[in-house]
């Protein structure tokens, strides 16, 4: 049981929770994830560590409400307990020796892009952060990115925040303007990461993508999180979650990610009914 120390709504469908988890906080590094169950009989879901405070013993998670489990998780409030919270899992992002990096985040993926941006910036690297959102009302962590990057490029699909356009437009612009990166790190929706990787491949820039497939145990037992990387089967939980973006089969990952789409819609509606029964006043998202 882990207590929720702080809960914050970052936008209409994204929530931040700072959770009391001293053992996880002691070891957590950017790029790693935790597995949680919101309640008894709950599903196990992986969430990437968005921040951690070793002294306070807390770990921050940021999640988008997309299905039944995230809906149930979002029903918990400060002072409530998350049933199970285990980690840190997966390998940490490799940052050693990187002098100049572009970090490209999209949507709620920016929650994961932020801790590595911060780490790189704090170890003295030149960090160009590019964040993309559909529109202004979905923006998260703007101040955090601005404070922990050498350059911060804001992109939105409709032009309501920063420049109108895609993150790939911004990245291409920087590269074309002569910026030379040791590495590009990208975290966001699969189509976005796919196109970032296609772009950097053109320029021969090493690119790391952070994958978030369906998982059960998260410890290297069930094999549900398998991906094809460079023609080989890899397990995101123990081999990843970050891989060489030029080798990942993104289309296959996208297809596998939709395995339970029908179930999720149903579970989400069920959770909404549950919520509405509890607080009739608050409309479901």
């Amino acid at each position, binding site marked *: 049981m882990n207590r929720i120390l702080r809960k914050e709504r970052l936008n209409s469908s994204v929530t931040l929770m700072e959770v009391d988890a001293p053992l996880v906080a002691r070891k957590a590094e950017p790029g790693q994830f935790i597995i949680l169950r919101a309640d008894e009989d709950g599903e196990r879901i992986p969430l990437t560590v968005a921040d951690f405070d070793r002294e306070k013993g807390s770990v921050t998670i940021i999640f988008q409400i997309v299905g039944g489990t995230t809906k149930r998780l979002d029903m918990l409030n400060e002072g409530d307990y998350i049933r199970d919270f285990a980690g840190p899992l997966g390998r940490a992002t490799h940052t050693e020796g990187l002098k100049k990096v572009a970090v490209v985040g999209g949507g709620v993926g920016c929650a994961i892009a932020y801790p590595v941006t911060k780490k790189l910036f704090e170890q003295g690297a030149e960090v160009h952060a590019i964040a993309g959102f559909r529109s202004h009302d979905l923006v998260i962590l703007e101040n955090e990115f601005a404070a922990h990057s050498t350059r911060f490029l804001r992109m939105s699909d409709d032009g309501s925040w920063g420049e109108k356009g895609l993150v790939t437009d911004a990245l291409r612009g920087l590269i074309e303007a002569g910026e030379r990166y040791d590495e590009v790190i990208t975290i966001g929706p699969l189509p976005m990461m796919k196109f970032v990787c296609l772009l950097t491949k053109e320029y021969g820039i090493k690119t790391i993508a952070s994958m978030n497939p369906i998982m*059960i145990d998260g410890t290297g*037992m069930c094999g*549900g999180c398998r991906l094809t990387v460079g023609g080989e089967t890899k397990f995101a939980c*123990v081999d990843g979650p970050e891989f060489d973006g030029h080798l990942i089969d993104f289309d296959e990952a996208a297809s596998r990610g939709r395995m339970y789409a029908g179930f999720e819609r149903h579970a989400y509606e069920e959770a909404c009914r549950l919520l509405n029964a509890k607080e009739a006043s608050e409309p479901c998202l």
Partner: protein
Amino acid sequence: MPVIQKKHPMPTQEPAVRARNFQEVALGYTKEIALSEAARCLNCRNQPCVQGCPVNINIPAFIGLVKQGDFEGAYRVISQASSLPAVCGRVCPQETQCESKCTLGVRFEPVGIGRLERFVADWHNENAADTVEKPAQNGHRVAVVGSGPSGLTCAGDLAKKGYQVTVYEALHTAGGVLVYGIPEFRLPKAIVAREVETLKALGVQIETNVIIGKTLTVDELLEDGFEAVFIGSGAGLPNFMGIPGEALKGVYSANEFLTRSNLMKAYLPDPQTPIMKGGSVAVVGGGNVAMDAARTALRLGAKKVYIVYRRSMEELPARREEVEHAEKEGIEFRLLCNPLEILGYQNPENPRDERNGFVTGMRCIRMELGEPDASGRRRPVPIEGSEFMLDVDTVIMAIGTSPNPLIKSTTEGLEVNRRGGIIVDEAGLTSRRGVYAGGDAVTGAATVISAMGAGKVAARAIDEALRGA
């Protein structure tokens, strides 16, 4: 009185009924059957059955007490050697262990030792109040990694000797494979929970949601004051065949499929964890895990379930009893048959069709047995031109596992073999001082009882090492 030549059959749920529910298949002996079965024991002098038991239960002694109607006494005899009697009575392959050595078995069917063990354990659980006495503490602390059969056995044996034992479990529930792997209809989870409670009453502390190798390392446990560490972290990542189509939606490892159903309770109505139900299912493999997966799929509502195995019935590694159960429940065995490719749906008109990427079938080839291979089993070879299609919606790969890398990669000096299994000596000691290991983490996928045997051996070695220290 003439000897009853055959084992008393195990009362079971009717196949047609049980194939659609998750309740236990075998119902257990009644008191009358147990008394009559116990009377078959010849009480022979050399007691070969005891040698056939990996944890050396004094089998003739407990059967003798059953004969006298002293079931609680019989339970005490079993529990001196075994921490998990109700579990072993259900899942041990007695036919290749104790019962294979039974003197009566030379001429007739052996005594139903496993069924009697189960009867005694169930009788105890129903009738006796647990009066576990916490033994006096000896001041030594031991950490156990993993709460499966080897870990629980090691923890139980050490706790009984007065050690302060902490068990670290990566998942949210204790029990390891007994909880995530073996289905409810073969091993009710309430039984596992009860065995775990008994250990807690002995003073064993169980910490769930702690992944050794990640949350804490083996070295940190030793630095924290644990004088010995036992690694019973179990089997690891599932193997796949490496054929096209294994990433399609509807292809599972048996570990994933069983974990979703057992640990995550996807078999209950309206679960929070999804699982693919119904349709036609092919399970690839011939071990006990394959049988469990096939029978689970059937109970989840599959119209048709196939076991696809590349050798013949003779080489099928699963327990006979489980194979017979599966056959009676209507599972179809496609023996001497090997998958070549899994095929998926693809709508050429619409890349956004929701059905895209789901399994539609599996292309297989018939096999025949050739010359024996290194394992002594005749090697299956494909029959050219014998390809055929199996129309299925779900494919479950049950072809074994490879060891989990988490502990090895974070414990310096811990030696592993070519396959990744931890190397131990006959006492379970690894290449690291004070670090012991046993069970599937050492041997690769094996049985519950052999893991328990390893936990027992290591507990004895740890006790000798620490008391001598």
